[in-house]
């Protein structure tokens, strides 16, 4: 932990990364771009997407952190990275058949020469949206299986940290597949430095590669120990409950098959599904305010990043950390209600803020208004009260979780 603090301090002192404090955990401000990258470095087999305009220090920061955590020179880490462009091929990214095998006597097994990127445990995919959709599927497969396949051969690189960067939709970019977006654990906007930040950056006189040598380096064992440190952070019941309720708030839909919005096809809240529904237009109900439901993958990401962020900030894994982290884990996975998003204060542009407000509402509702109904449900599940009595009580609650989750569950118990 001390080394991580030293790394953060060095980045600032050397003027290698000067970001605004846009991530508030309680009253404490942090730079989201840096801290989510650090959190990802403390986790394994998660991917963070840095999204922002050109020159916002996305790629450089990730490579600097890679140099520090992998204990390698900055230039070597930069060389490992793959960048998106239409001519990029699987052979250049992942590996190719070793041509020498055909001139060697004997040997039936196919041999593949894996690229350094494929073998690396710090994988950076630069400008991911410049890969055509077909190439993006390669990453989907890698993130899904945690293995890399080519010509029937499989490489298991082991626990890996994945980073991706992305510019907004310029020409020669391709939309990211929803399945791939769901595999991305967190998406963090990378903003341009503010006035003070720009002033600080103007003090940097040496090249980044030179300054990068001044960053503290982690040994292999130190880097390998980080996930264990994160795992030691205990997630309390309040945070677990808030996470599950948050997912249900986004996913439950009275009109979807199985009340599950992820089952919808061809229709969505934005396509008139909610017309006439009594939850529609109720600001306390989250369901109509986003088109997509959230998968269990989101629950795992919320748990992991909340823990990691608590570890980095040396605090308990409490609800304030979840409040801060959850919007970044969710916003890239959902499409907000258009007319609500276009109103002030979002103006059609501030999607992260929109999702942040939804998260706030859900968490506050869980902590406050849902207490009684949650107690009734838990007592019924434990058999302390009869399912019939609980159903009768819960029928008076108009909360979507009570109506669409608890009541059907109790009917099954009965």
């Amino acid at each position, binding site marked *: 932990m001390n080394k991580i603090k030293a790394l953060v301090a060095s980045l600032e002192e050397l003027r290698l990364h000067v970001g605004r404090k846009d991530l508030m955990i309680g009253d404490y401000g942090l730079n989201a771009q840096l801290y989510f990258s650090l959190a990802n470095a403390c986790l394994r087999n998660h991917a963070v997407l840095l999204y922002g305009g050109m020159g916002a220090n996305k790629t450089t920061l990730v490579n600097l952190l890679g140099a520090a955590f992998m204990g390698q020179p900055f230039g070597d880490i930069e060389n490992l990275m793959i960048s998106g462009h239409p001519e990029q091929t699987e052979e250049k990214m992942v590996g190719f058949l070793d041509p020498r095998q055909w001139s060697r006597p004997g040997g039936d097994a196919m041999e593949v020469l894996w690229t350094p990127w494929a073998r690396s445990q710090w994988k950076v995919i630069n400008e991911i949206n410049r890969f055509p959709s077909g190439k993006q599927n390669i990453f989907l497969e890698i993130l899904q299986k945690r293995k890399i396949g080519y010509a029937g051969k499989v490489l298991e690189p082991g626990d890996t940290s994945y980073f991706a960067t992305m510019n907004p939709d310029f020409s020669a970019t391709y939309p990211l597949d929803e399945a791939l977006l769901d595999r991305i654990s967190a998406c963090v906007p990378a903003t341009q430095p503010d006035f003070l930040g720009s002033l600080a950056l103007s003090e940097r006189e040496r090249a980044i590669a030179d300054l990068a040598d001044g960053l503290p380096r982690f040994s292999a064992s130190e880097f390998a120990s980080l996930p264990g440190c994160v795992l030691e952070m205990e997630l309390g019941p309040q945070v677990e409950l808030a996470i599950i309720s948050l997912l249900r708030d986004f996913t439950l839909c009275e009109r979807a098959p199985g009340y599950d919005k992820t089952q919808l096809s061809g229709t969505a809240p934005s396509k008139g599904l909610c017309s006439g529904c009594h939850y529609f237009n*109720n600001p306390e109900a989250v369901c109509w305010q986003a088109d997509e439901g959230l998968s269990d993958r989101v629950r795992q990401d919320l748990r992991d990043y909340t823990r990691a962020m608590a570890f980095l900030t040396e605090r308990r894994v409490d609800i304030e950390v979840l409040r801060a982290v959850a919007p970044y884990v969710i916003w890239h996975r959902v499409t907000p209600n258009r007319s609500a998003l276009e109103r002030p204060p979002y103006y059609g542009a501030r999607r992260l803020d929109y999702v942040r407000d939804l998260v706030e509402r859900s968490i506050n509702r869980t*902590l406050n208004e849902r207490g009684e109904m949650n107690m009734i449900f838990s007592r019924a*599940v434990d058999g302390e009260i009869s399912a019939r009595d609980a159903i009768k009580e819960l029928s008076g609650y108009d909360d979507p979780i009570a109506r669409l989750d608890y009541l059907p569950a109790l009917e099954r118990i009965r």
Partner: protein
Amino acid sequence: MKLRHFMDDAYQGKTRNKRLDTRKGDVVFSLDDLAERVGERPIKADVEKLVPEDDRLLASLISSNPGKKHQMIWGILTSIAAERSHQPLRLQSGNFVGLELSSGIIVLEHGGDHVGERMSGGRIFIKGEAGDYLGQEMVGAGIVVGSCGDYAFRNMRSGWGVVLGGSGKHTGVGNSGGRIAVRGDCGERSGWLMRGGRLHIRGNAGDYLGLLMSGGEITVIGRAGKRSGWRMKGGSIKAGSYGPEAGEGSRGGSILGLDS
């Protein structure tokens, strides 16, 4: 692990009961939202129930472009905004502005069609030209306009209208009350089927003035076109001069010169 212990730990004994208030702030974000709830040809009372209390949200609804689909809803919103406001509501233009207005003042640069329709109170001032159906079915209040298109003040029951320039055809058609003053000329068939009220034209009137009228008074300072008072059954027409066949087929009423 017992679920109840989990919940107990999560809430630490503090639970608060509150139902999801499904009626709380049926927030309307756009004209589409409003139309979904009240339909595209709503009653003003239905719209009033859903209009946001927040004046800024109402202002942003009014500033949005209603298109043809939501123009009636938008018109009702302009009336509600004018009624709530202590200051005159100033708008560029639009169809159905001031629809069912009951109080307040609206000032328009120029009007679209159906401005001031069914208004019962308040004032509408239009600096430039208005379209067709201005003040249709008015039951009170007043409109001042630079000039207007056809069917102005059609089926008027009460109130008044002043046209500073000319008006189009069918001005005051079917009126049963109210007063209309036109400083310029009016088009043909003005005062058609009039049953009451007054129509005063300072300029010239087109053909078929007061066609089939059964009551009310029409005064034309200039010249009335041909067939004025054709088949009229009641009421009176006074004009500076008349075209041919004035009063032909009339079964009542009077057609007089201005000196009479």
